[in-house]
């Protein structure tokens, strides 16, 4: 009985191994599985990112995080790894897609992978000059107005 169990166990392992091999062969064939998200291409005509695509897929967050601290604390404002430039290149100016929509460059993948990020709670998710989309539900005036609050202190 015990021997039979062991044999079954071995068979299961072999089947699992074969399945994994088949899957990896599928991945190495370079064909995109049908369930993969469709990621929009850059809009400015360039075909190459600042790093090879595989590297960016894996490590884009590290580049952005590193640049974030350098810019914030040291005033280093190189464009290569700046989030602003990601957006300028990957999100069309006339796009209505916001972060969260499947059509937005970042969320097309992040929605698929189920990884939530909070970059766009503060950063713009579209290039500057795009139409403001009115995120605030309380009807704020988008045109800045002069505030004289605090004046006339005696």
């Amino acid at each position, binding site marked *: 009985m015990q021997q039979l169990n062991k044999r079954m166990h071995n068979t299961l392992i072999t089947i699992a191994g074969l399945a994994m091999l088949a899957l990896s062969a599928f991945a190495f064939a370079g064909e995109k599985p049908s369930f993969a998200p469709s990621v929009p291409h850059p809009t400015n005509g360039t075909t190459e990112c600042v790093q090879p695509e595989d590297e960016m897929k894996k490590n884009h967050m590290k580049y952005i995080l590193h640049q*974030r601290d*350098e810019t*914030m*604390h*040291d*005033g*280093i*404002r*190189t*464009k290569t790894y700046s989030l*602003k430039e990601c*957006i300028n290149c990957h999100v069309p100016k006339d796009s209505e897609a916001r972060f969260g929509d499947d059509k937005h460059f970042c969320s097309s993948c992040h929605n698929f992978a189920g990884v939530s990020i909070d970059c766009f*709670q*503060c*950063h*713009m998710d579209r*290039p*500057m000059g795009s139409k*403001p*989309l*009115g*995120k*605030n*539900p*309380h009807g*704020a*005036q*988008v*045109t*800045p*107005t*002069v*505030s*004289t*609050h*605090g*004046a*006339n*202190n*005696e």
Partner: protein
Amino acid sequence: MSNSDVNISRRSFVEKSATAAAALTIAPGVFLHTVAEAKPADQAVTSAVRWGMLIDTAKCASGCTACVSACNTENGIASHDRPRTDQQWIRKVTLRDKQTKHEVSLPMMCQHCETPPCVDVCPTGASFKREDGIVLVDRHICIGCRYCMMACPYKARSFAHETVDLTVDYQPRGKGTVESCTMCVHRVDEGGTPACVEACSEAEHGAMIFGDIKNPDSEISKQLVEHGGKQIRADLGLNTGVRYRGI
């Protein structure tokens, strides 16, 4: 506090040694002054400069709010028509002497202290001072506790109570964090001048001067030497980067 004292003395020691070394290597009477303008984008800011402002209250026109509107436009600060909670990075203040009825008008914003109380109290390190003296909030690590707002003697900081409709990409701002005047750090890093200073000179008042107060050849340093520049609440010993004339 003792920690920052140590840092200051260490920094001044390093500066003095650097100055001494420079004086040794260059011919007598010839000094190198670092030209702070337009630092290369890939270089970090250094404490060789300290950005500051000098505001001449005699030139600041009562009722003029050019600096305030320029700041709002530049940084995308929109009013929700709720003055008690609207964000405000710069405001006009009128001081009236009760006895003489003499009135002085001046812009009030983050004074970019050398020893900022907001940095002392910040529990996360979000409130910090850059090497070049600009005091900022790193909103990536700000938890919105607002201790800094209470610690600031100048009431210079605001809290973002509501979702921000961003209009500019160089100044990310968001709900739940504290914000204040950045001395237009995105402009300064590229060799520019803060929006308020520019607007003041465009309005032909020229009441605000911006520059490096560590460089004796800068316009602001010359003016400071000649006319002095008072700190508001000098009794607190904060050594503010923003100085005033005529108060």
